[in-house]
């Protein structure tokens, strides 16, 4: 076990506050039995690794390089907590991640990304993730942005799921302004693997949301679901591109996109399905429109004002 406490200064306190704004629980970063990492800008404020996990971190000019390995056969009992933040108003944070779940390992990661003061901040994440044979990796990421709309979040990930591997990921960005989200995930799913990609985003004002998720089902009996829920209002724009390709016998993929628009917002959904194996199957559904009228009227018939009803419905869809 290796515990690093590099910095307990005001920055740590500020990050703790920012983390809580993002819905995180700062106390987990002090628990010795929980693997964790806190990064502010390019500074590593704390890091803790537990048995079965190898965590290597290097500070770079604009961010950090992270190598996280879950050792073969280890089932990590507690979620690994990660916190990436950027407290100044302007700047760049570049996170490079290499994540490996070795054979028969199992881990859940909970990440909070918080940018409470951003006026012109770019947060880039480039990730390479490999889930080896029969390994399980779940990665849930929640963002908190301030109300300025000055954040550009650009996560790119390449995910390689080997035979029998299972990968579940969810990105939630529903607190504060989005600014720009330009997400690009590319998954290769091997034999008997399972993949679930989920995004939930709430945009408003002039926010711009681009989500591109591609899953190539290259292994026999590989299965995937790509699920996107986007609510946008005012002059926000959103574009979802969900690509699923079935290349192997009995591969099955599904793309499911729901976008709710209000005001002058504009949404676009592009489901692309490609199948070149006659035994593979890929399906898709996409719905774009205003908030369901029957749902609104039902809640109004229970005494809510129209605006309250819409808020509850949108929150329900996103939470």
């Amino acid at each position, binding site marked *: 076990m290796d515990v690093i406490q590099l910095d307990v200064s005001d920055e740590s306190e500020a990050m703790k506050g920012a983390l809580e704004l993002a819905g995180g629980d700062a106390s987990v970063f002090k628990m010795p039995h929980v693997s964790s990492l806190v990064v502010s800008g390019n500074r590593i404020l704390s890091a803790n690794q537990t048995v079965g996990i190898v965590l290597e971190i290097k500070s770079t000019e604009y961010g950090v390089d992270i190598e996280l390995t879950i050792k073969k056969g280890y089932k990590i009992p507690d979620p690994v907590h990660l916190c990436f933040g950027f407290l100044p108003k302007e700047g760049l944070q570049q996170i490079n991640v290499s994540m490996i779940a070795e054979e028969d390992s199992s881990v859940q990661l909970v990440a909070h990304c918080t940018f409470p003061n951003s006026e012109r901040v770019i947060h880039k994440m480039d990730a390479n993730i490999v889930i080896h044979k029969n390994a399980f990796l779940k990665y849930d990421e929640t963002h908190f942005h301030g109300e300025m709309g000055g954040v550009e979040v650009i996560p790119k990930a390449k995910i390689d799921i080997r035979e029998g591997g299972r990968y579940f990921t969810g990105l939630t960005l529903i607190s504060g302004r989005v600014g720009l989200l330009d997400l690009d995930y590319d998954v290769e799913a091997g034999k008997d693997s399972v993949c679930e990609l989920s995004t939930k985003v709430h945009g408003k004002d002039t926010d711009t949301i681009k989500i591109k998720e591609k899953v190539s089902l290259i292994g026999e009996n590989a299965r995937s679901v790509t699920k996107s829920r986007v609510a946008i209002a005012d002059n926000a724009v959103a574009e979802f591109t969900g690509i699923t390709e079935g290349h192997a016998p009995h591969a099955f993929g599904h793309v499911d996109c*729901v976008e709710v628009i209000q005001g002058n917002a504009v949404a676009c959904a592009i489901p692309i399905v490609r199948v070149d194996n006659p035994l593979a199957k890929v399906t898709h559904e996409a719905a774009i429109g205003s908030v*369901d*009228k*029957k*749902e609104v*009227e*039902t*809640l*109004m*018939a*229970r*005494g*809510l*004002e*129209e605006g309250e009803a819409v808020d*509850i*419905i949108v*929150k*329900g*869809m*996103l*939470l």
Partner: protein
Amino acid sequence: MRGVNLEVADGEIHSVIGPNGAGKSTLAYLLMGLEGYEPEEGEIYFNGELITPLSITERAKRGITLGWQEPARFEGLKVRDYLSIGARQANNVSEETFCHALEMVNMSPELYLDREVSEALSGGERKRIELASIITMEPRLAILDEPDSGIDVLSLKEVITMIQHLKNKGSSVLVITHREEIAASSDRASLMCDGIIVKTGDPLEISNFFKDECKPCDMKAYTLKGE
């Protein structure tokens, strides 16, 4: 709809029966004030007050509510949160209220309170959840559009019990139904046909009249013999 004259007495269970396409659901939507169902002429009064110009919310705040034939899905909304909306209207938000309402529709609070209204539940279960949400609201007038649809035959008794429970709690209930059993359990019934309330009276008489005196025709629904 044309020439609809209908009065629901205070504390009364009043059934509206009639063939498909008669305008029964339209009547329910019109009474609740749904968008697109504003009357071109005529007036609606509730407890002596003209409510025709009022919004859905304003009508709900006076104690009127609606249960749909096909309840909304509410993706992501927990049953507990849904029930609390009606309970808030009745100033009665409590765990006990939620549990009681679910038990009234024969659902286990332990199993359902923290589940989502939508995907986790079948259509019939969603229907029960909606009825439970109406119970939590303690309405003065509950308009129930085919509360038996999507519910199995064995559960019909529970729907009737739930309607009686609303009455016992002081609600008036206007129930639109195709089921004789529900009509028979009401205090009065009205027969609606082709947008008109044809007859109002004893539920058994109205049911028999509907069965014996109405015949299929090639109009959009039915018409009365001899008309």
